């Protein structure tokens, strides 16, 4: 199986004022990349750029499978993302949300598979509840399911532990540990406990 490589080249992002980060480059294909930095250093923006949800002011991001650069849907679904800005349809249940996203992505998933994913993050007891009635921790768990939805070789997790209880933290830690052994996890956080021996560190706002 070909390895998937994520490469950022000379990334610069500026809104109004000085750039958040400038000429940032890194390349990774396996393991855990820790994105560190103080508040406002651009961690969330960097992960959105890597996820294809925002454009850099200059520089580029490529996702390659072997020698082939992924574009369009291949790229979109090869990179899983979860972050503070991710929200779900509050009138729908978690299952309805996941069912919709899998259909809209063109990779419809069977309900038993989606239910199993929800069970694995401890949301089995909330299947009939609207997402609008979820607690912050439950929404965070659903975000983790969303990021894994298409079994992506590259996983971008922005503050994945926020709002989680001890059980939730341990679920995410287990998932990240398993994923980093065979794929790539890029994890941004302010809490050093979230990174267990990262293979690479990207420090922002130095």
């Amino acid at each position: 199986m070909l390895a998937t490589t994520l490469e950022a080249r000379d990334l610069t992002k500026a809104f109004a004022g000085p750039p958040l980060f400038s000429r940032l480059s890194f390349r990774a294909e396996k393991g855990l990349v820790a994105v560190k930095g103080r508040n406002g250093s651009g961690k969330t923006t960097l992960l959105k750029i890597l996820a294809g949800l925002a454009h850099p002011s200059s520089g580029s991001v490529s996702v390659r499978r072997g020698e082939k650069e992924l574009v369009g849907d291949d790229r979109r679904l090869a990179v899983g993302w979860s972050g503070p800005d991710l929200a779900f349809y509050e009138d729908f249940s978690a299952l309805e949300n996941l069912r919709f996203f899998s259909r809209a992505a063109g990779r419809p998933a069977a309900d038993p598979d989606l239910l199993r994913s929800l069970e694995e993050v401890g949301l089995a007891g909330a299947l009939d509840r609207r997402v609008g009635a979820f607690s912050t921790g439950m929404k965070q768990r659903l975000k983790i399911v969303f990021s894994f939805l298409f079994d992506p070789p590259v996983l971008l997790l922005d503050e994945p532990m926020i709002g989680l209880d001890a059980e939730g933290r341990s679920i995410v830690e287990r998932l990240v540990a398993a994923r980093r052994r065979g794929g790539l996890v890029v994890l941004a956080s302010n809490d050093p406990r979230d990174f267990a021996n990262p293979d690479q560190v990207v420090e922002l706002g130095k």
Partner: protein
Amino acid sequence: MTASKFPQSPSPPVPQSLPDWETGRRGDGGSRTTNSLSRAWAICAKDAAQELRRRIAIASIFFFAATSVTLVSFAVGPFGLPLEARDRVCSALLWIILFFCAATGLPRAFVREEETGTAFALRKVAPASLTLAGKTLFNYILFLAIAAVTVPAFAILLEWRLPSAGALAAVLVLAGYGLSVVSTFLAALVARASQKNVLFVVISFPLLLPLLLSAIAATVEAAAGPVPATPLRVIVAYDGAATCAAYLLASAAWED
């Protein structure tokens, strides 16, 4: 499909049906088209389910339509108009009502995604062109539903006799499509603006004016009897141009 989306073993699970990024293959054109249609339909069905669960938005559009038709019928009809001006005035009033009903409901397609924060999740799973197609489809169905209620009520209350219901239906179907495409595209464009409602009306006025003038001209001709060939051709050309422009610019309007 994997048994579970989560990694159970040291390496990520291998799906039985490998995604394209694993195999490097491209799907055939036919299945990709079918896939695109089903994805756009999924977005349309999601919007419909959301609106039907909330009900308030759809109810307000139909309430607006009912109020407008009732007010117009009391103010000008059925005997307040000279016979020779009736078709022209009724056509104009009908399209004014339809336009404002549409302006009440159609921009919600994208605005709600931004306001509720679901835009990022939607952008992560579907390209802008498919999102636009799905939302245009929902808006088109909504417009046709509004027209199906408004036009008969308007015709009855103003005692406006139409010799060719088929011709009027063709005008509504074709002009309604253009109205839906342009309104949905503009909704994507203004969704992140602070004054989105004002911006929508201001931008939509010049863009929709040619369509609305042609729709009124076509309705006047349809009311007189013959199929309004010339204005219908203009509307079809407008629909084609609007579809191409919206498709080409969808990404610029909806993505960052």
